[in-house]
């Protein structure tokens, strides 16, 4: 067809973009066809007001999981064509298969992979390149001069020699030709078509007849599809792309597109700037040498110009002095980049907003600007779903509801204050790329946060709880994996101990709600193992304050461990542990660790006392009295003995009331102190005994007063008279005949 120029491009190729722009300015076409869904034709006029990277989002209203994205960066040839068209007043149309059809058929990835067969790969391999990207960079992107579109068309014709498109691909190309014919028929004389290089041979040369194309396109399934622009990020551009040609280095391409000249020098100077910002000393001499190395490497590899591979190696060897962390910084900040696109006001609603509206309608839960307080009873399915929705929105940064203190008792109640603000809509649009439903987007967000390097252990444990509250089981595996990784690397055993109770809670909560929290049990168990391994070191050489802090954690872990089911966990059991059977349950292993710690002579008194008490209460010790007398004996400094007592008695004086032997020990120790020693320990004792409830103190006092004259009163019981009372008590606690 005369008057039709087919410009085969590399999607997201900066060189292609520049060449397209130049070619369009030279051709001055009166119509431009771009590869993309034709439903988006009406959205083209919004393009100048948008700030790339943005993406065309096609979705089926009511079926949010069916969606497709076509991302555009400033350096995408398609984007440049659209910009040229809108500024020159030339109509721009999309010519790919309508989203209405492509979304109607289930996307079959196997089919896709077979069809594309990586034409670039075969061309690059033929030219002796191991990496197709490099071949493109050398032959197309770095070609400063004549237009390469003929060369590409020729090469593609050779690659596609004998290839018979079928299935999805055949339909796409048939539709492209159909659109092209329609444009010609409308009387456009100079038409430019911008499409992936692969499709060039299908659109140029002798075309199949219109009837044949119509036959291919007949009877396609169809759904109602809607399109809009959504903001995109370079990070997302690097990970996936609707064109199937994902790129790993959007930041570098942006640079290649933006930099007017000397891209290598500018890039390395910029990299030096990034490193300087982080406080690394990088001089201009470094930059000079890195540029030289990049050029030397390119020459060694026989390339005309240094590419990303060479500048990265040069930055690694010279600027970063071999430091991988610094290389990673450049990779993150520059090669991928953190640019975020923006959309303008007139953009149609995104599916995320639509999904929220629908959910709100279904749950009879209207957004209102005025603050309103609601009580949710989680035992009711409707309220439970509302709670899930609010928790999910909070994960997305949409604080429509803020949670208040629940009135009344029970964990099944939540109180929320609701108020819808305009910025919540913006937040939804910003998060549109995360998913098309609130649940999917929140889950994605949770996994993103978990994957972030800045998250600390406490963040992740709270994230797990939030995921459970928001009922996002699909996000849990990744969050848990991140948590497990963080827990493994955390060298501070106290932060592990602080995190464990929440995890045990979450585990039980998951059980109660029936939420699947597989893996949580495994993590809890491995965290406990890590705590067991780290505790003996953590209790060494503690000051008073630190001991008190650690004690709190030990108590918390101890009560959390009590909540763990005692079913033996998998793995090789019963072999090496001292004392098989009970020792292999989490509780048994935990107590074994405490016991091992407790026997050490160098412990802080507070901790030793508390551990003795814990072990005594668990029935692990039969020599508590000996231990107490050892701790109280004259060999110990009085201050330590007092700390021991404080640790031992913390949690109430009832033990003293009911165990005359221990009381006698304490009493004997106290009365045996010299006046000076007594003054030393008095503040400590005051603190310990002051914490007891008044009746307990009185009971201890009475016990002591009576101890002298009539000890052994307890034994003096008339069993016959007591029998009736005992029988009553037994029947009350349900052991009547046992």
């Amino acid at each position, binding site marked *: 067809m005369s008057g039709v120029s087919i410009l085969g491009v590399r999607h997201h190729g900066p060189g292609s973009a520049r060449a397209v722009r130049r070619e369009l300015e030279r051709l001055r076409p009166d119509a431009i066809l771009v590869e993309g869904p034709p439903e988006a034709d009406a959205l083209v006029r919004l393009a100048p007001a948008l700030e790339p990277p943005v993406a065309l989002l096609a979705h089926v209203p009511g079926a949010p999981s069916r969606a497709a994205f076509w991302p555009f960066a400033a350096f995408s040839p398609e984007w440049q064509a659209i910009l040229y068209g809108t500024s020159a007043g030339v109509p721009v149309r999309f010519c790919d298969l309508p989203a209405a059809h492509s979304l109607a058929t289930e996307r079959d990835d196997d089919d896709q992979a077979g069809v594309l067969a990586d034409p670039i790969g075969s061309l690059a391999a033929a030219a002796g390149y191991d990496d197709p990207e490099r071949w493109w960079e050398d032959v197309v992107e770095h070609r400063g001069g004549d237009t390469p579109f003929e060369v590409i068309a020729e090469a593609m014709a050779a690659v596609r020699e004998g290839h018979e498109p079928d299935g999805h691909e055949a339909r796409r190309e048939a539709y492209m030709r159909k659109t092209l014919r329609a444009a010609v028929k409308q009387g456009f004389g100079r038409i430019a078509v911008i499409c992936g290089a692969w499709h060039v041979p299908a659109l140029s040369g002798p075309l199949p007849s219109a009837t044949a194309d119509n036959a291919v396109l007949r009877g396609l399934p169809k759904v109602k599809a809607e399109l809009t622009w959504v903001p995109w990020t370079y990070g997302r551009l690097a990970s996936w792309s609707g064109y199937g040609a994902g790129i790993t280095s959007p930041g570098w391409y942006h640079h290649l597109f933006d930099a007017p000249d000397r891209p290598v020098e500018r890039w390395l100077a910029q990299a030096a700037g990034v490193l300087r910002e982080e406080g690394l000393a990088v001089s201009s001499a470094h930059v000079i040498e890195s540029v030289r190395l990049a050029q030397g490497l390119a020459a060694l590899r026989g390339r005309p110009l240094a590419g990303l591979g060479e500048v990265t190696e040069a930055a690694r060897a010279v600027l970063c002095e071999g430091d991988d962390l610094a290389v990673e910084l450049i990779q993150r900040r520059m090669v991928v980049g953190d640019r975020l696109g923006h959309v303008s006001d007139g953009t149609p609603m995104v599916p995320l907003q639509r999904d929220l509206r629908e959910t709100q309608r279904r749950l009879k839960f209207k957004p209102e600007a005025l603050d309103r307080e609601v009580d949710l009873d989680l035992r009711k399915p409707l309220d439970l779903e509302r709670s899930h929705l609010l928790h999910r929105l909070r994960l997305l940064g949409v604080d429509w509801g803020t949670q208040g203190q629940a009135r009344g008792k029970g964990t099944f109640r939540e109180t929320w204050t609701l108020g819808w603000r305009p910025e919540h809509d913006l937040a939804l649009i910003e998060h549109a790329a995360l998913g098309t439903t609130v649940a999917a987007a929140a889950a994605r967000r949770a996994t993103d946060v978990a994957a972030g390097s800045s998250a600390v252990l406490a963040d992740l444990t709270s994230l797990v709880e939030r995921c459970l509250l928001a009922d996002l089981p699909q996000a849990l595996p990744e969050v848990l994996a991140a948590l497990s990784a963080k827990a493994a690397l955390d*060298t501070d055993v106290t932060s592990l101990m602080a995190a464990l109770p929440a995890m045990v809670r979450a585990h039980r909560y998951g059980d109660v709600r029936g939420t699947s929290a597989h893996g949580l049990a495994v993590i809890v168990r491995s965290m406990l193992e890590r705590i067991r391994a780290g505790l003996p*070191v953590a209790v060494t050489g503690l000051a008073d304050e630190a001991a008190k802090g650690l004690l709190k954690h030990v108590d918390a872990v101890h009560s959390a461990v009590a909540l763990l089911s005692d079913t033996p966990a998998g793995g090789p059991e019963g072999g*090496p542990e001292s004392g098989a059977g009970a020792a292999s349950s989490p509780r048994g292993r935990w107590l074994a660790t405490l016991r091992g710690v407790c026997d050490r002579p160098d412990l802080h008194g507070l901790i030793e006392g508390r551990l003795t008490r814990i072990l005594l209460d668990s029935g692990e010790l039969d020599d508590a009295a000996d231990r107490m007398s050892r701790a109280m004996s004259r060999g110990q400094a009085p201050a330590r003995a007092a700390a021991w007592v404080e640790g031992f008695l913390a949690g109430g004086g009832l033990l003293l009331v009911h165990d005359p032997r221990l009381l006698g020990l304490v009493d004997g120790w106290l009365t045996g102190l010299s006046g000076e020693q007594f003054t030393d320990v008095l503040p400590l004792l005051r603190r310990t005994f002051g914490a007891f409830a008044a009746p307990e103190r009185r009971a201890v006092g009475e016990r002591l007063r009576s101890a002298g004259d009539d000890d052994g009163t307890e034994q003096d019981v008339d069993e016959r008279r007591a029998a009736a009372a005992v029988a009553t008590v037994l029947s009350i606690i349900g052991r009547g005949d046992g």
Partner: protein
Amino acid sequence: MTVLRPHAEDQYAEELAVLAKDDDRPRPPGWKLSPWAVTTYILGDGERVTPKYVGARRIVEVAVATLATDRALLLLGVPGTAKTWLSEHLAAAISGDSTLLVQGTAGTAEEAVRYGWNYARLLAEGPSFEALTPSPIMRAMAEGRVARVEELTRMPSDVQDALITVLSEKTLPIPELNREVQAQRGFNVIATANDRDRGVNELSSALRRRFNTVVLPVPATAEEEVDIVARRVAQLGRSLELPETATGLAEIRRVVTVFRELRTGVTEDGRTKVKSPSGTLSTAEAISVLTSGIALAAHFGDGVVRPADVAAGIVGAVVQEPVSDRVVWREYLETVVRERSDWRDFYRACREVS
């Protein structure tokens, strides 16, 4: 007379000759081969040239490009990552001479980097160029060859800094004679240094800036490492004339797995993170653990290497720092080893020795 270990340029003289004959690419001044041929010499070409270094191509390319742009090269890495091996072969391929070597130790004096005096002549004739004993560096400069500095960070800092003038001005002043030695084209320096050792003398930033740094990594995949270890263990066993033992590949794989997991901080299946101990846990250490296991099995056991034979060696390699490493090891034992049902015997053996 046969030497125990010939120099690289002698041992591989044939390969170098073949490469030089076919090499029609431009050679930097003073080079025996083109950069491209040097790369081929190091990495092998699959038929006539054997690979000398097994690893990423880009590392060798950066190293060669560095030397070609007449910058000094610093090879960094934990012990046992073939730093010296690579530097020797680079020097052999570029200059045809790998003998211009300065070994860095705490006792290396400035004479080893600059020049010393032949005192008999100095006294007899007074200061003259003939009374000078040149260092390997000075000779490399005069002849336009590559000099090697081993363990650069072990040298005292003031000796290290003697290299600054050499590397930036490419000249070595001799103030006593009021003259200087200027480097001929082809001169360069390859230094190696260990980046994980304690008690080393950090390079001053002025010196550091004169080097391009290439970090040699530990083997990338478990298979690669198992292969290296298995081959090396067999070689060592032969040369130490240990009695024949059946070293199962399974035991080698287990030792390599433990080393890799602790070194990288993540289990082989990528699902569990573990802490890394303070030791380097290099491939070389894995080899020595297995060699001593073989010795134990051969002399005191039944000739088959069992978990108990390597357990003590592993614990010794992992627990270098008594307190923190022991925690790391116990955690690893309890959270990773214990979970593997087919490692039960190994778990028990480790429990016994730790």
